């Protein structure tokens, strides 16, 4: 069996990629996808820890399923917002939206 370490490395890379994408891309869809990646990195972590540390207890897996449902909901809401932004500004370009300016 591959050790936990590898699982964590993959998860870390996935997380870093997600953060990179979320912070630096201007396309809202891509940001959303990057956030999905971050969440999946977390999922991987949860499943990994669950499998390797408490094999008899499915708590980690259950958490992962929760995260997936939340992620789905979040994606739906996020896409709806992006749709509104796209209609309003003509593109899903997040750098044009500056309504949060103080």
């Amino acid at each position, binding site marked *: 069996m591959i050790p936990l370490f590898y699982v964590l490395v993959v998860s870390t890379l996935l997380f870093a990629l997600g*953060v990179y994408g*979320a*912070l*630096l891309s201007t396309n809202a869809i891509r*940001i959303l996808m990057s956030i999905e990646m971050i969440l999946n990195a977390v999922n991987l972590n949860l499943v990994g820890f669950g499998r390797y540390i408490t094999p008899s207890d499915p708590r980690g897996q259950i958490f992962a399923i929760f995260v997936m449902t939340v992620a789905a909901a979040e994606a739906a809401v996020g896409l709806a917002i992006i749709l509104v932004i796209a209609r309003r500004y003509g593109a899903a370009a*997040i*750098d044009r*939206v*500056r*309504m*949060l*300016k*103080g």
Partner: protein
Amino acid sequence: MIEQAWIIAIIPIVAWLIIFLFAKALKEKVAYVGILAMGISLLLSVLTFSEALGGTVEKSFPWAVVGDIKIPVGFQVDPLTAVMLLVITIVSLMVQIYSVGYMHGDVRYAKYYAIVSLFSAAMLGLVLANNFFWLVLSWEIMGLSSYLLISHWYEKPEAAAAGMKAFITTRIGDIGLLLGTIMLFVYTHSFEFNVIAEKIHAGEINQGIVTVAALLVFAGGVGKSAQFPLHVWLPDAMAGPTPGSALIHAATMVAAGVYLVARAYGIFVATPYALFWVALIGGFTALFAATIATVMTDIKKVLAYSTVSQLGYMMLGLGAGSYTAGIFHLMTHAFFKSLLFLGSGSVIHAVHSQEMHEMGGLRKKLPITYWTFLIGTAALAGIPPFSGFWSKDEILLAAYRSPYPVLFWMGVATAGLTAYYMTRAVILTFFGQPRDHHKYEHAHESPPVMTVPLVILATLAAVSGLPGSPFLHNAFGEFVKFGHGHEAEPSSFVMIIAISAALLGVLAGVAIYGYKVISREKAIRSWRPLYLVLKNKYYVDEFYMAIFVRGTVLLAEIVGFFDRYIIDGLVNLVGWLGMQLSFLSGLFDKYVIDGMVNGVAAITMALGNSARRLQTGFVQSYAITLFAGVVIGLILIQLIGG
């Protein structure tokens, strides 16, 4: 009737209520309500009087339980009360009938009648009360009526000011009465005159305390009866309607001070020192006011100072030890002085002026007024056999028998001056040539509704002295007396002196004003300083104005300033100091708050301005900040080792 004597005081209250509530509907018919009520009261008073000849009645009921004491409500009818009831109801009835003519067409006709009824009720209540509490209560309501009547024509500034002056001046005296009442209660545990007198008579109370209490009670009398030094309000009170002055400021209310001393005589006799002061103040006021009256040219002012003087006379009689003499003079004075006032009202009604220099020769135009006025003058001047002679004689007799001869000579001098100034007034008004022809031509005798009361009062002024004369075996003295009555032996010396003083006064008046033996102008010129002092009433008003009125107003201004700037300033200073410590207390002062609020706001603004640069609105920069924050947080936790 005597058992229900309190009804006498209730009837005018009912009249007052009716007048007050239905003034608009009744218009000038309100007069009949007042007159009817007073007529009934008079009738009941006569009944009560006749029953009082048989014995006295006193009744008390509990009125209020206060803590551990009880305040009673009660009335009594003794000879003093019986006489007072008669005097008040007669004079009040006459004045109200007379007013129908005099006040006709007045803007506040109903208000006038309402006040007169209220006043009559209060005065009747006063003489019926058997305890100090109810006496004080009625006393103050009389003061209110007096105030309202003086400022009846309140559009005139002097009338408004005179009302206020009267109320406040008498109130200074009232404070004395109030304190005296409280003091007597504290030491005797009773408000009732008889109980207090008994306890004092039994020697239960320290002599010093009795003296102080008596002097305090007397202070009330000084205020109400316009004795020196609180006499200043009465002459100004003449700004009110003349018949009202006749009732309140001549015949009845001002005599309440005398009545008070008589009612509390049981306290006064126990302390010769207080009694001496009563006599001294009375005697001094009598002389003092009489001298002023000699130079007044306003007919009402002459009568006002004469009233002050005669009230002093009554006080002199009481103080000299003769209860009977004081009350006897009170009664005769009530009749002849109200007569004189109503007579002067009739003159004023005819010529529309109060200045005697604008009158003259009115004898032919106003015959009834002239004859009745003359009778009043004779009574006041003490010409036998008119009423004033008998009562004055008794007072002089009492003063003569007292240990202080100065009192007697004060009385004699006053008697002479009284005769002089009244002669002067009669001559200036009714004799000689008319000095203002226009006014003279328009003068006409008053209608019967005014002259009939004059005639009735003139009759009383003429004969009311007889009950106290030797012809009726001094019946008055037998009836109204203190204790067993120890009236002084009549003295022919006193009688001769009194008659000669009066005649001398009359002669001097006739000589100066009738035959002009001495030129008035020349006399004024050679006695100018004295004339000025008298004309300006010894500058007492000016002195009070400068010291007390201005002083109080100045004190008030200082306190107002102190409050506004020092106390409030201190509060604001505390606030300012507090602000250094905390923000909340910094809100005290308006300017400091503004500064503080603005300061805080400025800092917040500055912070906000720099902070808003961070707020790019660029979502991802927020996310970076967030992420960086988390990373820094994690590193910190690692470093600290949490």
